[in-house]
């Protein structure tokens, strides 16, 4: 009986520990924003996270590409300090739901005795004049004294639409698409990432595998060995219409398609005449809701 109790405590403790480390869920409205988008609202659901139960929840946000990286909400003057977060970083409660909080722009605060209005994310990070500098920002939610916090290390982050075109290892055209749109996927091997199999740079016969998935990541269908073309921009590309990629399984329709995963592969010949297949990582993107 004693052993059973100990086991139960361990199991419950493990579950308790998991709840402590849960990342907060969040939604950004509109769903696609760039650094200059106005009227942005981020809604946080802290259910199961370390800050659940707090009436005052603060946001600690930083943009890795900036220096200083912290949002101006987190400090009133000088530089940001974990131990003395500004009251401006306190999130607004969502009426009727104690586990939900929000940050809405424009937001007017008092910094160092002066009233300041942040109209967009660039201004929130002090780069209103050079908005192209911010590509994404990470955040964690915390108590005022910092004794409770959700995971950091960019476990929760908001990626922004680029303001300037930047060549990338992988991209789609259009950059954001719905499941009813024609999609072109591009792979630029001259920008291969360090974690990838570097043999890809000398690979030939580049083909692709496209997988359509539900919102929960369940595979609906996958099509492999899709031929690619080599473009004038030195990218491998293939174009598809999700609806026409392949026949949908019974009971599943285009309405169920929420995500797409793309993998490229190629062949590398060795000195003995053998052929090895090399693959890229899986590039995943979500389909947007367009009408």
């Amino acid at each position, binding site marked *: 009986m004693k052993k059973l109790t100990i086991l139960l405590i361990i199991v419950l403790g493990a579950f308790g520990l998991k709840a402590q480390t849960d990342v907060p869920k969040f939604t950004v*409205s*509109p*769903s*696609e924003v*760039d650094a200059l988008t106005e009227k942005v609202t981020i809604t946080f659901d802290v259910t199961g996270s370390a800050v659940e139960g707090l009436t005052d929840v603060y946001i600690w946000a930083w943009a890795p590409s900036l220096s200083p990286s912290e949002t101006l909400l987190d400090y009133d003057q000088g530089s940001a300090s974990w131990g003395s977060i500004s009251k401006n970083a306190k999130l607004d409660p969502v009426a009727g739901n104690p586990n939900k909080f929000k940050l809405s722009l424009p937001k007017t605060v008092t910094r160092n005795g002066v009233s300041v209005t942040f109209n967009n994310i660039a201004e929130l990070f002090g780069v209103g004049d050079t908005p192209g500098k911010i590509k994404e920002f990470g955040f964690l939610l915390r108590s005022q004294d910092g004794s409770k916090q959700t995971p950091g290390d960019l476990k929760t982050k908001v990626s922004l*639409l*680029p*303001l*300037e*075109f930047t060549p990338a290892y992988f991209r789609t*055209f*259009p*950059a*954001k*698409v*719905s499941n*009813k*749109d*024609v999609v*072109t996927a591009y792979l630029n091997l001259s920008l291969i990432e360090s974690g990838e199999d570097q043999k890809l740079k000398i690979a030939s016969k580049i083909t692709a595998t496209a997988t359509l998935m539900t919102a929960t990541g369940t595979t609906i269908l996958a099509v492999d060995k899709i031929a690619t073309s080599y*473009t*004038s*921009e030195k990218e491998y590309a293939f*174009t598809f*219409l999700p609806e*026409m990629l392949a026949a949908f399984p019974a009971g599943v329709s285009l309405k169920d398609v929420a995500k797409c995963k793309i993998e490229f592969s190629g062949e590398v010949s060795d000195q003995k005449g053998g052929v090895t297949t090399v693959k890229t990582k899986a590039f995943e993107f979500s389909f*947007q*809701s*367009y*009408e």
Partner: protein
Amino acid sequence: MKNIFAVLLISLLAFSCQPDEIPAIGDKTDYKPMLEGTWNLVKFEQVDADAESKSFPDFATRKDLTTVFPGHLYTSFSITFNADGTFSANKGTSYVQMMASGTWALDDTDYPSAIILTSSGKTQKIALGSLADVVVGKVQFKEERKQVESGKVKIKYVYSLTKK
């Protein structure tokens, strides 16, 4: 005699200062007869509206999809607008999504900006590009894909057609 000459001169000057009569404006262009006939799709393009608004390079803004699907060329699409108000569309092997047949009308007879297709109680609005080239047998249809929550245009499809 000198006074009479002066009065005559002043009168002539006064009359010459009368504003010219405004010329009559021609009849409003009736585009409906110009749109009647069979139109073949010759080019089908996709535009990333966000990239366009930020002046991204052309290859990251616009893509010609006309022949992108071998065996499903967009050039196999055609549509016929009949004088009796009916239409028929032949999608050929293309993936164009358009009503197959029904009736057609302009949204505004004087200043049309769209063609309204109707079939079995359902309507499809086909936005028109500039009508300046209709007289020379060219027209553009435009389809816009909007973000649900903001209503912002995110993707545009441009159909360039020529008259058969």
